[in-house]
């Protein structure tokens, strides 16, 4: 009777197998980047003894006279116009505090929040007292960044009907540097689920709603039971996203879809345990081969 056995052996780093090398200038804190005083210093650097020294571990980026070091992994740094998914942590007097994986909690002002039915009127004292009825601690919302304060805190708004409180679905938290900037972050995937790729690294997977006309801004919580087929699709998508993240690949709708298609031959055991690292590598190797076949899609226009 033949048996298959795998002995433990140290895995070779993936970069060796890919056979690539990086052309970027990599630095660690304490490294001197340049002694030329003509350069302006950007993020990730500091001036010490007439030299420009790096303060984070990452790659050096130079734009004309500006030198900055981009760290491998940082918290989310807000920019106006980004879509974020966040969780309410506090209900304060005229605003909510939202946790968005950034250095300070973000702020959602009552006046930046949509009223039910999309009414436009001045917020009164009754609205203030009813704040907890709209959003409580622990609720998830999708919003857009309106402004960035001087200390880095971000101000959100849900002025469009497509933003608002999120209903049933699955949240995946990844590093913000892995989410690709695109024209739209709300995607309806053909496999039967929809996904919101927040710029702050929070990804929300939910079943595609059948009736698209009633965009109520999320005030009506849809608590109907989700079918088993939809739930399997959502679990599979979550595992695909986690596989892509462990292999440090950028997340956008096409990459998630390709990974999903590559994973169809494998069975979904249960939504709980993470996929094994071997499957992660297998999927991403298949995916990279796919990317070679379709070079046009890999040059996604980023706006």
């Amino acid at each position, binding site marked *: 009777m033949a048996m298959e056995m795998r002995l433990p052996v140290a895995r070779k780093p*993936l970069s060796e197998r890919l056979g690539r090398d990086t052309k970027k200038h990599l630095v*660690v804190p304490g490294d001197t980047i340049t002694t030329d005083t003509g350069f302006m210093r950007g993020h990730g650097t*500091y001036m010490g003894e007439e030299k420009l020294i790096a303060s984070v571990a990452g790659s050096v980026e130079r734009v004309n006279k500006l030198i900055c070091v981009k*760290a491998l992994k940082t918290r989310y740094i807000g920019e106006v116009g980004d879509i974020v998914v966040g969780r309410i942590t506090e209900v304060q007097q005229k605003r909510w505090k939202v946790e968005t994986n950034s250095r300070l909690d973000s702020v959602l002002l009552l006046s930046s929040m949509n009223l039910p039915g999309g009414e436009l009127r001045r917020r009164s004292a009754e609205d203030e007292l009813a704040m907890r009825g709209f959003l409580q601690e622990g609720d998830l919302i999708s919003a857009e960044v309106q402004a960035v304060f001087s200390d880095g805190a971000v101000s959100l708004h849900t002025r469009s009907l497509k933003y608002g409180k999120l209903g049933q679905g699955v949240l995946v*938290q990844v590093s913000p540097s892995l989410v690709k900037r695109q024209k739209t972050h709300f995607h309806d995937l053909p496999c039967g689920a929809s996904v919101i790729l927040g710029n702050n690294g929070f990804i929300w997977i939910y079943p595609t709603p059948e009736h698209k006309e009633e965009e109520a801004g999320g005030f009506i919580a849809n608590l109907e039971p989700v079918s088993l087929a939809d739930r399997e699709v959502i679990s599979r998508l979550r595992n695909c996203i986690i596989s892509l993240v462990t292999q440090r690949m950028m997340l956008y709708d096409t990459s998630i879809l390709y990974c999903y298609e590559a994973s169809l031959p494998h069975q979904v055991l249960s939504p709980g345990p993470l996929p094994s690292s071997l499957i992660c590598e297998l999927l991403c190797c298949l995916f990279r081969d796919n990317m070679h076949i379709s070079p046009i899609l890999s040059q996604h226009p980023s706006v």
Partner: protein
Amino acid sequence: MAGLELLSDQGYRVDGRRAGELRKIQARMGVFAQADGSAYIEQGNTKALAVVYGPHEIRGSRARALPDRALVNCQYSSATFSTGERKRRPHGDRKSCEMGLQLRQTFEAAILTQLHPRSQIDIYVQADGGTYAACVNAATLAVLDAGIPMRDFVCACSAGFVDGTALADLSHVEEAAGGPQLALALLPASGQIALLEMDARLHEDHLERVLEAAAQAARDVHTLLDRVVRQHVREASILLGD
């Protein structure tokens, strides 16, 4: 301890090392996915695991927020099975609190806290038969992994003095023998000292030599950690693509 000489006539220590040699160091970054930064280091038989969360909004009392700097919060705990006798309280006892305070002093000197006002950085270290040096080295790697800006690496090493020779990187046997022990945390590029601590008594004539031995050992640790970080950054950079 009769029959156990810490330094033999030929210049070998109990575990076969020379006076200035370090124990074998292995380190890895990015050990936990759910934390912002994490690292694991093994220095001989001592194993330390460090986890960093932050910078994030200050939880708990809002009054502790500093308007111009970030708050660095360190907690040290040791495994109950790590010492000779099983410890019943893994954290909260006096030694752990003191170690936590020392780590906080060290990292407040190295992290550029002015860049993140009103936020908090948490460093949790767990060590096995732990000494201060392994904790600091692990925490440095974890802070680097989290992308928090630092002036430089913080490399630490211990040193002792036996029979007129300065020994670098003490093992548990040498520490238990009861001689003077010096713990040094250094920022290698500029040579600045972040923390210097000593227990027991040492004649000031010998201080210079012991300090130099500790500094040289810390620089050797820096070479190793530097290599680990560069390898990690290169690996991640290749995977992300150009």
